[in-house]
């Protein structure tokens, strides 16, 4: 999953324009709470086939992306 499609998933879920989401942003800043994070993770798992681990304590858009990349790498 590249950063473009990753940000598309986030923007769609958060109902926020794509350009408003930066890699440095906190997930909470784009309106994603703990429950939303669980939902996003399920979407990202479906999109990548990777198994994500929410206990990793990710808090920023970048951290979540890194985690997806890492796990997707393991899956492929």
């Amino acid at each position, binding site marked *: 999953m590249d950063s473009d499609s990753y940000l598309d998933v986030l923007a769609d879920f958060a109902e926020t324009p794509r350009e408003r989401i930066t890699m440095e942003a906190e997930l909470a800043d784009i309106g994603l709470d703990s*429950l939303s994070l669980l939902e996003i993770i399920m979407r990202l798992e*479906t999109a990548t086939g990777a198994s994500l681990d929410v206990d990793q304590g990710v808090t920023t858009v970048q951290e979540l992306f890194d985690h997806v990349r890492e796990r997707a790498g393991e899956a492929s």
Partner: protein
Amino acid sequence: MSARVVVTGMGVVGPLGPDLPRTASALMAGEHGIVPREATSEGDDIRVHAPVRGLDVAEHFPRRELHRMDRFAQLAVVAAREAASRAGLEESVDRDRLAVLLGTALGGVHSGFEAQQQLTASGVRRVSPLTIPTMMGNSAAAGVAIDLGAGGEVVTPVAACASGTVAIGQAMRMIRHGEAEVVVAGGSEAMTAPVVYAGFQNLRALTRATDPDRASLPFDRDRSGFVMGEGAAALVLEAEDHARARGAAILGVVAGYACTDDAHHITAPEESGAAVQRAIRAALRDAGDDGALVHVNAHGTGTALNDRVEARALAAELGDRAVVTSTKSMTGHLAGAAGALEAVAGLIALQEQRVPATVGTRQLDEGIDIDVVLGSARAVAFSTVLSLSLGFGGHNAALVLRRPEA
């Protein structure tokens, strides 16, 4: 003497319309909300239902908020917002003393069944993390609490089809006992899942009628079961002094409440109706019965047994004093929301001094020796409404409403 409990706001979303004005106008005009229904699978014999009319929930919530709630919770929030807004709750209310009592019969079962289908089709890891928060029966009350910022007691009374009436009755007691300053009370239900229809069909409780105009026939000799309805209704209750101090308009008084149980059978009502009579008597006593005419908003489901037992209890307890209607002739059966919508209907009838008709019903069955309003709404001078709700489990809830000036 405990405080008089008054109603200062009402909200409703149901088969007659997506708000109070449209519901009130359909109610008085006798325009029912029953429509044809497609079978969902082989063996599904139910051809009519009464879904919410004229509501697009997407206009009321952002998408992300929407899918955090089962439909029964979405409907509850829409109805509660209307009630709160009409009561002017935005201002001058102590949020820590604002309570929410919202009943339901089956709550978020639809979400639960969808999750089970997902589990069967795709496995554990594809089951939504929202399954539990959408399924849980208290999610409507909690959703309303979050929406209105209600930090007092927030709970969900469950008494099957009597839940809405129980919620309002218990809310009245809370205000009387000073346990809350303002209570948003009512009920919500959205039993749209095919498995719920299948269960009721096999209980022989739902009508197999195909003509929407002749499907929900409370007290009629041709009645053959109830029509499934959907919706939510909420009332804002507070002590009269509190309402007057903040300048709120007083729409009616919740004057009495009682609830009894048949202690007899999990689905069938006890034939003598003795426990229903006890509930009626105790609620009227609680209200300070004046012996005058009573408009009865009956439970009146259109099932053979319910209507026979209820009519027997009403005839024995009230005789000629009762002018009876069944709102379910127009809305179908809203289960845990029924009593709440019917309390709203009773207050509308009080305001307009007209009793809506039991539409659809043409000829009362043998043994139904009560005065049921048929044809069109009847002008009646009355000050008291008795709203009855009877639920699986033998629950008999009776609520007494009065005009503010009575």
